[in-house]
């Protein structure tokens, strides 16, 4: 297929993830999905392999790499289990606010433990009445001397309960609406902070999604990221950086679905020959391969564009997330169809990929929101 001219360091990283995937994930992924279990073993392996340090600067114990390497890692991991890669990628999502907007003291306090994988992160923006309409959040943070007091709740938070570090967007000045939001670091164990029920999900079942509650949650004032009123800028910039990670997840899932269904189609004999020989089937695989490769090209280009230091990354990031996740959903649906009854049975993994891929169209901003972003940004270029 297409050669993306990966460097030696990338190949070394991908071979290491392959080893981790084959040893710690592949034999257990269907069981985790079936029983909806979060197993910390692959996360432990990823942390011992230094893979949580990809985007963290070397001065804080990371590798000092960028979005491109993050996407390569997330793609490869998603090839084995998108539930595991969700736990992994959500930790990057939660670390970006500190990385992009944190002060030196906050970076020194949190980034080394994030890089070593000793502590997982979570990003908490969504609330029951504030999904796509993120500005409708109600959680508040009131300044009280050297502290902030948080009250409210967050919903559908990946890594809830298993993370040690939570980035929470709350209103410091509700009267100002979106301009009155601020970003805070809440630590596991902070007084007044608790984790609600674990959600039962259609897919990504090896990851943990929970509610978070803040009941007079008292945190030191130096946990404020940037300054008051910057909450949504922190949140939106974080999502701009992390979104191509969701696109990378889509690549890994789609690659796996393509390979497994292709193997089936070339060995399944009907009417005296492999079903792959029938033109309708062969053409379907051709379309799957083209769309997957186009998605990969877009995700990789976007990641490299982000790493170039460009400022206007919103549109590219949304395009990569939108196109790759729509493609993954389509490829997984076709993969099931190409396998017929085998694809539909839970003994085979393709149905899991189908369920996992569905979430990618919804989280980190629904694909409808991505199109809003792209449409809005288009006017800047072509008005």
């Amino acid at each position, binding site marked *: 297929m297409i050669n993306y001219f990966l460097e030696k360091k990338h190949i070394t990283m991908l071979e*290491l993830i392959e*080893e981790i995937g084959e040893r710690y994930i592949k034999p257990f992924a269907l069981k985790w999905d079936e029983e909806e279990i979060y197993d910390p073993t692959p996360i432990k392996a990823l942390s011992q392999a230094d893979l949580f340090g990809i985007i963290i600067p070397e001065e804080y114990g990371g590798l000092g790499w960028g979005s491109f390497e993050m996407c390569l890692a997330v793609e490869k991991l998603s090839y084995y289990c998108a539930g595991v890669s969700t736990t992994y990628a959500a930790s990057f999502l939660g670390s970006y606010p500190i990385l992009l907007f944190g002060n030196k003291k906050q970076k020194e306090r949190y980034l080394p433990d994030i890089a070593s994988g000793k502590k997982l992160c979570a990003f908490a923006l969504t609330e029951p009445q504030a999904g796509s309409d993120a500005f409708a959040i109600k959680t508040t943070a009131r300044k009280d001397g050297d502290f902030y007091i948080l009250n409210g709740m967050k919903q559908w938070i990946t890594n809830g309960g298993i993370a040690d570090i939570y980035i929470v967007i709350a209103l410091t000045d509700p009267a100002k609406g979106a301009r009155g939001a601020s970003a805070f670091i809440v630590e596991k164990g902070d007084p007044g902070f608790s984790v609600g029920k674990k959600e039962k999900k259609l897919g990504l079942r090896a990851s943990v999604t929970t509610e978070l509650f803040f009941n007079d949650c008292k945190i030191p004032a130096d946990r404020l990221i940037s300054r008051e009123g910057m909450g949504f800028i922190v949140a939106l910039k974080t999502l701009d950086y992390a979104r191509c990670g969701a696109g990378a997840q889509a690549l890994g899932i789609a690659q796996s679905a393509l390979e497994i269904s292709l193997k089936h189609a070339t060995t399944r004999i009907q009417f005296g020959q492999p079903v792959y020989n029938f033109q309708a089937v062969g053409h379907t695989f051709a379309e799957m391969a083209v769309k997957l490769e186009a998605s990969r090209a877009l995700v990789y280009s976007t990641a490299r564009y982000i790493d170039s230091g460009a400022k206007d990354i919103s549109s590219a990031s949304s395009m990569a997330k939108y196109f790759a996740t729509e493609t993954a959903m389509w490829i997984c649906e076709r993969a099931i169809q190409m396998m017929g009854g085998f694809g539909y049975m839970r003994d085979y993994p393709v149905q899991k990929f189908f369920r996992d891929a569905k979430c990618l169209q919804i989280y980190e901003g629904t694909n409808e929101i991505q199109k809003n972003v792209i449409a809005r940004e288009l006017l800047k270029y072509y008005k």
Partner: protein
Amino acid sequence: MEKIIVCIKAVPDPEKVKVDPETHTLKREGTELLLNPPDESAVEMALRLKDAFSAEVVAISMGPPNAENVLKKVYAMGVDKTVLICDRAFAGSDTLATSYVLAGAIKKLSPFSLVIMGMQSLDGATSQVPPETASLIGIPSVTNVKEIKKEGENLVVIRESDYGEEELEISLPAVIAVTTQIDYIRPCSLKRLLKLEDIKSEQLDAEKLSLDRNKLGLSGSPTRVADVYEKKLELKGKIYQGEPEDLVDRFIEILKEKGIIKE
């Protein structure tokens, strides 16, 4: 605990292994070598002790020059230092000659608190080297260990036996041979993998270890392999074709002929 020495062996890939027709020993040079699986457990146990007690972990391997790759792998897993014990005079060594070399290297690396080895190698499968090495150094050994815990100055080990598990206290220094029953083995560190090109093992040979050449290699080994042959695997399945009714009758006849079912 100051220094832990882990003995590892580079074994031929079982799917690509070749036998020397003259010496009846396995050809190690020029073939792809892998880390002996039980030795991976030994490295993991040593690294857990390192994490808990800040000990230095040194991995040593007696083997051909290409055993260096296996030493690099365990460096990437987290060991502090690697040593390759390599000499043409070692070729064809049996377990006694091997133990003699390892004992010499371990003494050279003194002082040490503990030696950990895999309980057996994939290619030899004798389980003799750990106790023989301990005996030659003059320290105690425990085999079949599945868990190591440190209590005070002594180590407590869980040993598997035919009758269940034994908990033994062992004074240091000692040799411990571990099983593959460990619950988890860490992957390589990416940071270390990226530095591997700059990593070179310390090289030791018979001269540096002041070894008696009469006790080395094929000539120094009392074991003689009389013959080596490849196990031939043959599929005995047959395919019968015809109408289902006839085939069922034929199938029943075959089962009767083989005595699997009776009249």
